[in-house]
């Protein structure tokens, strides 16, 4: 057999001989003071715990810290309806992006991600933007049944010229960390959005600056186009690329995959009995591979 990498990556227990450090003393004391079942104090964003020791791509991570970014995504964490709507839109945009990328129904179930169009890149990236004001505004329109909705953070462009909008002349293009002025969007009497191109405010997220514009036709969102995208350096480009999802349309048959094992979430001993791993183990036993 040819030479192969050593298995030195599996660590030994050398760390175990270290003396217990003061921080752990403190932990043990805290636990001693906190009797069984006693509630914890509510977590405070920005506490000492959240030492941002390894935040990815620190150069571009200026807009938010991880805790404050994620906390609003949790139910009951005081997040507004607009934020929830933005999330819904972001998810919907990501889905449509995947569809446009040709990996929707009928696509090969497994393989490398298809290379989607730029518009789908930005739509998928939108999923990773915690709250993009422009998208929140767009969604407000899309979901609206009244005509009183304001397009927050976006600038409506004339419906008569929906496509001829070079990025350099977009009125809504503004500096990072700010959004364009709130502008009332043209909403028709029946509550649908007037045809046209709507430019979102530039949004600074951890990957860089993102700005999109949405094209509406017949009251429907028909396209999302990229105006600014954080591909200035290789680092942020990598991150941007894995913000592009691939749709898993159907499960791969384990038989055809000829695998040695399965990684799933924690099997309880009961659920193991109904798992693929147990079938693999049974097959091994049946073929005489035993200890």
């Amino acid at each position, binding site marked *: 057999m040819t030479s192969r990498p050593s298995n030195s990556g599996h660590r030994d*227990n050398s760390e175990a001989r270290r003396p217990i450090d003061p921080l752990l003393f403190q932990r043990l004391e805290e636990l001693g003071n906190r009797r069984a079942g006693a509630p914890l104090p509510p977590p405070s964003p920005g506490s000492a715990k959240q030492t*941002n020791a390894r*935040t990815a791509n620190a150069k571009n991570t200026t807009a938010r810290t991880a805790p404050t970014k994620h906390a609003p995504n949790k139910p009951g964490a005081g997040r507004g309806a607009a934020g929830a709507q933005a999330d819904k839109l972001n998810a919907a945009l990501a889905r449509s992006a995947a569809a446009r990328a040709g990996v929707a129904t009928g696509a090969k179930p497994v393989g490398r991600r298809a290379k989607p169009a730029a518009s789908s890149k930005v739509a998928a990236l939108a999923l990773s933007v915690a709250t993009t004001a422009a998208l929140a505004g767009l969604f407000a329109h899309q979901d609206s049944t009244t005509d009183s909705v304001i397009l927050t953070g976006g600038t409506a462009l004339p419906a008569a010229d929906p496509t001829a909008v070079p990025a350099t002349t977009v009125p809504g293009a503004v500096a990072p960390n700010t959004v364009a002025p709130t502008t009332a969007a043209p909403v028709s009497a029946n509550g649908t959005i007037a045809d046209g191109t709507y430019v979102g405010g530039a949004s600074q997220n951890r990957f860089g600056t993102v700005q999109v514009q949405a094209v509406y036709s017949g009251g429907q969102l028909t396209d999302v186009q990229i105006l600014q995208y954080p591909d200035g350096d290789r680092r942020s480009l990598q991150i941007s690329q894995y913000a*592009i999802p691939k749709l898993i349309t159907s499960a791969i048959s384990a038989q055809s995959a000829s695998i*040695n094992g399965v*990684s799933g979430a924690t099997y309880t001993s009961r659920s193991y009995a109904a798992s693929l791993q147990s079938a693999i183990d049974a097959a091994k036993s049946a073929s005489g591979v035993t200890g």
Partner: protein
Amino acid sequence: MSLHHVESVMGTTISIDVVDSHDRGLIDELVAWFHEVDEVFSPYKETSTVTRIGRGEVGPDDADLTGDVIDVLHRCERLLVETDGVFDVWSMPSPNGTRFDPCGYVKGWSVERAAAMILAHGSQDFCINAGGDIALGGRNPDGKPWRLGIRHPDDPLGLALVVEGEGPLGIATSASYERGAHIYDPRVDQPSTDIASATVLGPSIAEADAYATTLYVMGVEGLAWLDAIPGYGGCVITHDNELFTTERFDTYVVS
């Protein structure tokens, strides 16, 4: 000339394959190790060290603070910082009623230690799968890279994708499909349910296990966090069955 054993322990089922050994004593040693871990670290056992620590019964001089326990405590402390407070064994609701539950680290850690025991035994081709937390050494019985399926979130008998790699390699998946919403986000004091599953692979299964839990809580954006850690890659599958991956993870995916 190979070993295969399945053991129910630590509330899960552990499959052990050692390709290049026929020494039954190695299996006995590994099985004894996992039962020892269960005794010390199970939050379900009234007398376990973990339960005693959670109840504040263990002082700095307690005999239960063995090298292994201190090792786990130290690494959990480091992970708390490394994960921006997301992986916090000190605020997990534990089955024993306390808020100390290092299970999210102990399973992968115990598998990594078992892998080290196999190496010390002189074998190098192995696969240990503890309820989906997998440590790989060397190559599979065919002399090829190990081939592993990652479970499809909607289908217990189907795969979402297949990865391939030589050891040393650890792979772990966190998801809610089996045990419901049990992965805790300590920052909001609530279970996390935003995505369907998160898988992490890298050189250490102990770290990969903790990172998978962290990635599950962080969601898609956690991929940027994970990608900054040398040697580790991962994927997130959403409830809409969308797959997000890091580039490093892609290098392991079988297309």
